[in-house]
């Protein structure tokens, strides 16, 4: 019975995700696969960090190529 409950599926995550991973059948494999291929634990954190880095970069680019020239 318990075997049935904990059916596993194998997902391909490539070398970057260290080959394949075994997960519970009911798991959201797309979401888990994406997290396995990212250093961030959630997509929200990944997006916000990217946004903040870019805004800082844009600020400095504007500073050195427009405002201070």
């Amino acid at each position, binding site marked *: 019975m318990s075997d049935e409950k904990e059916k596993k599926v194998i997902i391909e995550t490539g070398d970057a995700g260290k080959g394949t991973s075994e997960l519970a059948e009911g798991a959201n494999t797309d979401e888990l696969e994406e997290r396995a*291929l990212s250093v961030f634990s959630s997509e929200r954190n990944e997006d916000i960090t990217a*946004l903040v880095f870019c*805004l800082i*970069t*844009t600020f400095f680019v504007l500073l050195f190529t427009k405002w201070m020239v």
Partner: protein
Amino acid sequence: MSRVKDHVPVLLMGGLLIVYGLIVQTGILLPMMKYLQTHKSMDLQMTLTLIVGGIAIAGALVNSVKEPGNSIIDRFFLQPLGGIVLILVMAMAIRWYLEPLVEIMSEALQPLLGFGIYKVLNLNYVVLGILAGVLLTNTWGIPKFAEAGVKCARFVLKMGVIMLGARYSFAELAKLGVYSVWLVGFFVLGTVFLVLWLGNLFKQPKSMTGVLSAGMGVCGVSATVAVAPVVKAKSAEMAYTIGTILSFGIICMFVFPTIGHMAGMNPVQFGAWAGTGILNSAQVAAAALAFNAVDIKTLKVAEIFNITRVLFLPIIVLVLATWFGKESGHKLSFKSVVIDKFPIFILGFLLLFGMSSAGMFSPPSHYKGKYIDVSYNDRTQVTNEEWVTLSKAMAAGEFSALTPEQLAAVKNLIEQRQIAGNYAERNDKKAFDKVGRARMTELEGVLAAAKAKELTLSSDVKGAIKHAIKQVHKKSKTIVTLTDFMIWFFAFGLIGLGMQITKKAITQAGGWPIVMGVIAGITKAALSFFVVLWLVKDVVLN
């Protein structure tokens, strides 16, 4: 000791980067850089290699003595460091050596093939980066020390997508003819929805369908890269989409001019058709030139339609983000679709697009940072030697074969020493700009006619006209710098994503993307062919 051994590759890469930076500093590599045309990036090469090399050595030394932990520095810097350095080294090799070499080889092969492989196959850092990643992962495999670093790829790619927003401006779209906006808008949205419907019909994954719809609808490779994280496309799906778009575009590039001639299209009609039906900018230009190398109008119209199509990217990103949120969400309320599921990084893309449209980076009517400025400026004038050359050629009657409009434009260039509007209208910016741009178009026509050997001009005269045209084409330094950041982010992200494409992943995607791409591409090309023949006469340029 074993921990030190694990970090030897990173230490080695860091050391090599520093040695390379020092060699660049001595100037020994300058002749080779000039041959590769990378000498302008000499300072960047030196600075970047020394900084990355220094950080790599310092990080590897810390990793060698420190127990691995779970702090932010460990997770985001120390653990992925090996992979980050490896990808950066690959990105540098591609940007500074492989891409210029491919360009040189492509130019050498051009007389033989009749077209440049580099442009037509889009063999730039985007495609080369993905190929390098795929090659590494499917041959030697990703080295153990680099595994964690490869996981930064998607994050860095998202930063590139945000930066991409700076290159477009709404003002440019508003400035384009209403006709081309409606026509292209209809076909862009039509193709996107057709691919989404085909995906549903063939039961393809939403991520695959989403990324292919943007690629087939908008502008090929950049649209694919921008939309991939929005619809959470897998690396192999991105690669499939780019492959489908480029191969379909190559076929169109050869077939379009033949069909255009057979159907008796005029230059404006063909320009409109090529700009709507072909996806890659370089392929659009190649098809327009193959159809008519003499009349600059074909290329101009094709470019207008191509630019209109590319400028639809922000709209399509919004449409697909909403579609993907709606498709993957359970509730269909506005909050769940637009707020909860909407990718936050796309807000950054839209923010930069907004800033660019508001003119924060350059005059708002720019396209990819380039804009035309025909206002009076000492730096926009031709040189004294060029002015003497043009005056002498005019006196000698060298311009007698020109059309009256072309002749007037050359006379005015000699009179004002630069391409500009009428002096009397200098306070009416709109009228002044319009006349100045019209004169520039006439001068471009002179060069095209000379190139097609319809008239004979000395190389000095051609050089002077070319320089005058170049002088009014300005580039925004801010957008050029932001684009440089975007290029490095994309190069890093795409090499990393390439490393996630295994043979198995490619097989899993199957042949459906190609089938869907071909159906959508042919439908779009055929429909736009009839619509253009029916609707477009000569009104687009007005």
